[in-house]
């Protein structure tokens, strides 16, 4: 109620009116650039494609760092100039009302930006049929962006309350937003945390090869990893640097909590603000030196992390000179005259304190231990690369989301994951393992019984990987869980690149809910599957459902694919590339002229019987409308065998 009472709409209207040009521009620029981006994206697509959330949110990410300063400067910019601050404060409106009104006004503008951005994202999704944008994904982006924008805006307002110039405002806001997480990251990299040897992050195994593996075995301290809790907890502006725009309630709640705290703090400080200090960086010289010293902390931590001190005395001297120059330049840019002796003394104290702190943290002893399967509460697995033919085994596509929904508790699987990890790390087996493409890059998220949670990007031995798949495919609980996920969500169903029509989709979903669908396939070389893409758990998830063991499902799919095929091959221009499979394995590859297209045209109207022997043709060809893919099912296997045998150009058998 107090907030509403303190809201002065007339003041807001006038305050916005005086900067209407800049505000209108800020309102339309994000939706406009999102629109341009999606229009270009949509025009370039010749086949349907699910737009990842990061693609839709990419513009939001860029403007998250700009809009808040723009709004803070437009709505509160008068405080940085003596004449304007005198003028505004002579008006019959108290500071509380002024602060609350401007804050609410900024939030309303941010809301408008997000609504417009969301509207245009959905609009272009509807206009371009190949551009598949899930409304729930757009809603998630709007929520995350809105919370993030508001958080950054309020933090920026807090910075304004004790800054006297635009430069000081910018520096203070950046410190409020980034100092703590950056220090946590940098100190975390210096400090040696408790480490579990066989779970360490090691994405560089391939590029560094054998020697690097040895160094890992000799000294685990050199490797680098982080815990999942930290990632989720970070506020969005910092998180964006590392992980992009991701939905996380931990992060959102932290931003909401901090926004409330910063708002209350900002209000109190604004009411007490000494307006006569406009045009000076900060109210006092002490405050100026304090802020300047704070800005030196991340710089010193980076220098420390680079280990320039330990390299040579020259390195140390260069580092100190670099920091000192920065320290003096800060005063020159901010046009604040600080006595030379004070600057030198404060610089020395800052360097000493930070060094003492990093040395202390760096020397904290850490416990290094192996983790047993018994220590693990559960594991979820995500896929690392979409180039893998084992794509569909792990239902969470890590291109979009790195942590899985389903936590595996099977001790045998946990053992296999750890053992697979050991094999890759072991220098006696790792080289062969990797050289032969027999390890798999995966993401997994481990919950230990002691409450710790780790996110790990690594590779495990291929043999172990396949065993895990085999166990999972027989695991009834897991199958049931996945089936529920597939059936309950709407999403889209694709055969090849084609999105099925609503009628086919309903038929497929009905069959999937009735049939005892086996979502795993023992064969890794087949394209005989459909893909269901949904937005669930705040991320895009792809489920690939094999058809080789589901005859009824196959009949429905083949019916749609064969009706669609003529449309897909229309406008054929150059050579055609076709992979041919039987029920579960590859028969051959055809690369040549239109002979196979004649076959397709001839048999496209044939009745397809999924219980008889059949081939699946998965092809790609250049058409007048761009490169198209198609899927075609046929029972005329003998005729096709003949075409493949007669085809001499570039044809081969696996």
């Amino acid at each position, binding site marked *: 109620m107090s907030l509403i009472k303190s809201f002065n709409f*007339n*003041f807001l*209207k*006038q305050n916005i*009116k*005086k900067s209407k040009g800049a505000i209108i521009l800020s309102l339309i620029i994000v939706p406009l650039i999102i629109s341009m981006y999606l229009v270009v994206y949509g025009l370039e697509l010749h086949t349907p494609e699910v737009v990842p959330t990061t693609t839709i949110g990419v513009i939001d990410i860029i403007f998250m760092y700009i809009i808040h300063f723009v709004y803070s400067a437009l709505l509160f910019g008068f405080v940085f100039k*003596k*004449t*304007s601050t*005198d*003028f505004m404060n*002579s*008006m*019959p*409106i108290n500071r509380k009302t002024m602060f609350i009104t401007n804050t609410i006004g900024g939030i309303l503008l941010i809301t408008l930006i997000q609504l417009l951005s969301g509207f245009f994202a959905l609009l272009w999704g509807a206009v371009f049929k190949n551009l598949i944008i899930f409304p729930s994904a757009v809603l998630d982006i709007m929520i995350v962006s809105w919370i993030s924008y508001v958080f950054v805006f309020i933090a920026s307002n807090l910075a304004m309350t004790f800054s006297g110039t635009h430069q000081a405002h910018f520096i203070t806001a950046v410190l409020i937003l980034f100092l703590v997480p950056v220090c946590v990251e940098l100190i975390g990299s210096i400090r040696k945390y408790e480490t579990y040897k066989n779970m360490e992050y090691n994405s560089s195994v391939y590029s560094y090869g054998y020697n690097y593996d040895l160094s890992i075995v000799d000294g685990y301290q050199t490797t680098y990893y982080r815990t999942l809790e930290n990632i989720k907890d970070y506020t969005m502006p910092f998180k964006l640097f590392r992980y992009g725009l991701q939905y996380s309630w931990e992060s959102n709640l932290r931003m909401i909590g901090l926004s409330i705290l910063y708002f209350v703090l900002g209000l109190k400080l604004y009411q007490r603000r000494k307006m006569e200090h406009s045009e000076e960086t900060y109210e006092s010289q002490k405050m100026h030196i304090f802020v300047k010293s704070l800005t030196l902390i991340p710089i010193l931590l980076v220098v420390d992390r680079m280990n320039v001190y330990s390299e040579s005395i020259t390195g140390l001297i260069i580092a100190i000179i670099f920091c000192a120059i920065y320290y003096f330049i800060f005063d020159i840019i901010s046009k604040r005259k600080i006595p030379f002796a004070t600057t030198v003394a404060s610089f020395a104290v800052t360097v000493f304190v930070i060094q003492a702190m990093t040395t202390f943290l760096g020397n904290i002893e850490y416990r290094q231990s192996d983790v047993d399967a018994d220590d693990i509460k559960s594991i979820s697995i995500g896929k690392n690369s979409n180039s893998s033919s084992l794509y569909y085994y792990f239902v969470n596509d890590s291109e979009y989301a790195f942590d899985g929904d389903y936590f595996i508790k099977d001790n045998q699987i946990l053992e296999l994951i750890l053992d697979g990890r050991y094999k890759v790390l072991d220098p006696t087996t790792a080289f062969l393992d990797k050289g032969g493409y027999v390890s798999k890059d995966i993401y997994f998220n481990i919950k230990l019984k002691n409450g710790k949670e780790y996110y790990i990007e690594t590779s495990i031995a291929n043999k172990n990987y396949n065993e895990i798949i085999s166990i999972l495919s027989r695991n009834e609980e897991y199958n049931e869980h996945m089936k529920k996920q597939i059936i309950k969500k709407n999403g889209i169903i694709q055969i090849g690149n084609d999105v099925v029509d609503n009628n086919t989709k309903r038929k497929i979903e009905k069959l999937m809910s009735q049939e005892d669908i086996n979502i795993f396939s023992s064969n890794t070389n087949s394209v005989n599957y459909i893909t269901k893409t949904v937005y669930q758990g705040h991320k895009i998830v792809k489920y690939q459902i094999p058809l080789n063991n589901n005859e009824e499902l196959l009949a429905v799919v083949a019916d749609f694919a064969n009706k669609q095929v003529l449309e897909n091959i229309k406008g054929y221009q150059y050579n055609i590339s076709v992979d041919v499979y039987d029920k579960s394995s590859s028969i051959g590859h055809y690369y040549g002229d239109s002979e196979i297209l004649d076959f397709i045209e001839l048999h496209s109207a044939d009745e397809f019987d999924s219980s008889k022997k059949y081939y699946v043709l998965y092809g790609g060809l250049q058409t007048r409308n761009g490169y198209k893919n198609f899927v075609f099912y046929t029972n005329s296997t003998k005729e096709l065998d003949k075409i493949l045998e007669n085809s001499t150009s570039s044809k081969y058998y696996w």
Partner: protein
Amino acid sequence: MPDDLYFFPNYNLLEMAEFYQAMYPNFDMGNVKNLAEILKLNLKAKIKTFSKGMKRQCALICAISTNADYMFFDETFDGIDPVVRNLLKQIIRKQMEKKPTTIIMTSHNLKELEDICDNLGLLYKGGILFESEINSINTSMTKVQFALNGETNQEALQGLEVMSYKKVGSVATAIIKGGRGSIRAKLEALNPIILDFLPLTLEEVFIYEMEVLGYEFNQVL
């Protein structure tokens, strides 16, 4: 209305008036238009294109039209020519007739306040040095010019509270605290050759009050 005026960038007088209107519930937009016409100010011309005096007129029009109970004017007539200055004074007077308003004006040019203010306060180092009604200044302080038959000197003024005494040739000019009656009686008793009572300006009041506090730059130089 501050000495250092502020207008929103690219605003015209009408837009500024609209801002004031949003802030002050009793703002009189009609008055703005009326006064702008009297002062020949284009309502829709950007204020930044105006001269210093015209900008001050704009600020004064907006301030007056707020119909606020209290108004503070700092260096109100700075940069304004005498004709417009008189016009603005009339506008201020009219406003006070229209509605009971307390107007506080600060200025270093005291002459411009003499004919418009009821009360005078002298500010010195953040405090009020002297405060009086304008009318009572004439009764509490007297400026007198006199020449005695013999030698004219300050001793003749013994018993009076002399704030300032200057002598050019045989004619002395003194500012004395107190009313004319008692001073006239005292000086007439000395049979002066010349005895004139001169009008006291606000600037003289200020200067002599400051001199009492040792604020004399004449002596410094």
